[in-house]
């Protein structure tokens, strides 16, 4: 294996191996775990998280972080529900919500770039702002009822094993494919990696830093709005109180997938694997079902930790470590 290959693919391969190990263990312990239905459920139950983590990956790759996505998702769901309740057709409403999310993200990106503000703080402010806005739209959750929206929410393709792929699942998979192409096959993607690798170098290379950074946060805002859309398709309702702590889950998924918070290193596909690991652990704990509230949290923590450490151990032993 040459060095470039190792650096690019090894973390992903290791993450995939860890996922397979996890699935094998769960399959051995719980009869009926390794079925298409369970896998399809992991995809649809985590579609919203996957879409958030997708946007988060670009932000982290660029060397930033976005804490606003959880509450922005909540704001998107309740805004969509309110718009449809007010008589707007779901399709333009969805586009409007996507636009709001994009502008919200772009606004944060502008603040971060123009005034050299720390992304952590700006997006923390964004988190509070979106939370307040969500409750300002409606304090209570709202049910969405519109024939076209219901049709979209009920749409599913059954794959063998009676496993349903729902609209939210398709959204996730299509966005995932788009994200992989965007990261690897476009100039924007290369700029993001360059910016996260070293801003000074990116500047010297004459890359459009301002545009790239603002676009990255706008993309994350868009993903949060789309994740909100996936959530409303799943629940047919908007809920201003949803999304608590979801930004941390999304960051965890990206990091489990091998993305470094220092920027420049990681992949969208790795994040996808991270989401699957996260979702599989939660599913395995549901299949277990015998733990009380305290042990459930402890088991969740230990499992996450174990797989992260395992992944570190595997990628260390496989790659030349400049530090040792």
């Amino acid at each position: 294996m040459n060095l470039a290959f190792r650096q690019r693919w090894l973390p992903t391969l290791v993450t995939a191996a860890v996922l397979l190990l996890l699935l094998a263990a769960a399959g051995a312990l719980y009869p009926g775990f390794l079925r298409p239905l369970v896998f399809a459920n992991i995809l649809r139950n985590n579609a919203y998280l996957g879409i958030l983590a997708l946007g988060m990956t670009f932000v982290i790759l660029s060397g930033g972080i976005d804490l606003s996505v959880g509450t922005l998702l909540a704001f998107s769901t309740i805004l969509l529900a309110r718009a449809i309740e007010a008589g707007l057709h779901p399709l333009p409403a969805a586009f409007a919500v996507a636009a709001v999310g994009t502008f919200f993200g772009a606004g944060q990106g502008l603040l971060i770039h123009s005034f050299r503000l720390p992304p952590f703080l700006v997006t923390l402010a964004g988190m509070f702002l979106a939370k307040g806005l969500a409750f300002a739209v409606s304090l209570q959750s709202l049910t969405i009822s519109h024939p076209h929206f219901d049709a979209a929410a009920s749409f599913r393709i059954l794959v063998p094993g009676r496993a349903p792929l729902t609209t939210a699942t398709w959204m996730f998979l299509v966005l995932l494919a788009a994200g992989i192409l965007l990261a690897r096959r476009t100039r924007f993607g290369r700029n993001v990696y360059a910016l996260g690798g070293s801003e000074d170098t990116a500047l010297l290379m004459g890359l459009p830093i301002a545009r790239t950074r603002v676009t990255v946060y706008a993309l994350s805002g868009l993903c949060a709005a789309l994740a909100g859309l996936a959530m409303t398709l799943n629940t047919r309702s908007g809920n201003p109180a949803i999304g608590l702590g979801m930004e941390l889950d999304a960051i965890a998924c990206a990091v489990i997938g091998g993305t470094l918070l220092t920027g420049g290193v990681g992949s969208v596909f790795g994040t996808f694997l991270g989401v699957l690991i996260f979702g599989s652990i939660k599913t395995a704990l549901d299949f277990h079902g015998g733990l009380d509230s305290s042990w459930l949290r402890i088991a969740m923590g230990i499992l996450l930790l174990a797989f992260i450490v395992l992944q570190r151990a595997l990628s260390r032993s496989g790659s030349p470590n400049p530090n040792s």
Partner: protein
Amino acid sequence: MMACRTSSAVARSWLWPLAGLLLLLAFNGIFAPGFFRLAFVEGRLVGNPVHIAVQSSKIILVAIGMTLVIATKGVDLSVGSVMAISGSTAAVLAAAGASFPSLFAASLAAGAAVGLTNGLLVAGLRIQPIVATLIFMVLGRGVAMLIAGGQPRPIQNETLLFLGSGHFWILPLPPLLALAALLATAAVVRFTPLGLFIAAAGSNETAARLAGLPAARIKALVYTFSGIAAACAGLIAAARVETADPSRLGELVELDAIFAVVVGGTALTGGRFSLAGSLAGALLIQTLTLTMINQGMPPEITPVPKALVIVAVCLLQSGEFRKRAAGLFRRPAAA
């Protein structure tokens, strides 16, 4: 030369949260008559300024540890769960009849253990701080619930209760303890090389290691310290309400503490920190909370002013922003 510039930058940056705090207090002085009124109840001082001081004590304590963690380019999300573990441990031991020194030691040891584990994961295994401590945020909450049996536990130890609601002369104890902890920490980082080591470990780890500094050990130490600081905060917060609630104690305190630290001028990129700034930041956030209650703001929209204050303080700290704002005012004069 370098050190000089850094310290003046810090000195400037912690002035901004202080300015924000004064501005907020001035707002209250004008729009909330009686805001600063102090009274004596049974020989103790009460009133809004006292409430702010008491209520921010736990944030100050947590922020002391968080400041040093952030100075090493890390973050500690597990502090809220550590508070719950420490409070629950103390409550359970007190119910079993343990003496104050033993339950105090046990609670701090529990906090130190979580902190040390965080530190080993970050420094030894190089797991990214946000993820390592996120895991202990979830796991630690479970441990606290396990210790307390899921239910809130009354605190049955007179000495511990005194720490939470006792008074020294006319002044409440919690803010005095928090201040003492802050001063002690400040003295250690100021008068021993430790402060320099921490800043060095944060600004450039490889360089620090090459210069012979044990960067990994410093990080482990800093996370352990953060665990102990959070454990102290947990004891005081639980003692103040005479109850340790394992599922709610310390909930979301990590956000308040990070806010206090970063608004106080400690850079998330590591390398420079200001404990005085964190103090100003903690007082700022608690004053803001109290102001919103005082103004009768509907509770569901209170996050919005919080967001605006963060952005405002950020902008004030940003040299870029000040330059542009100054330019904006100068231009018409020039024309």
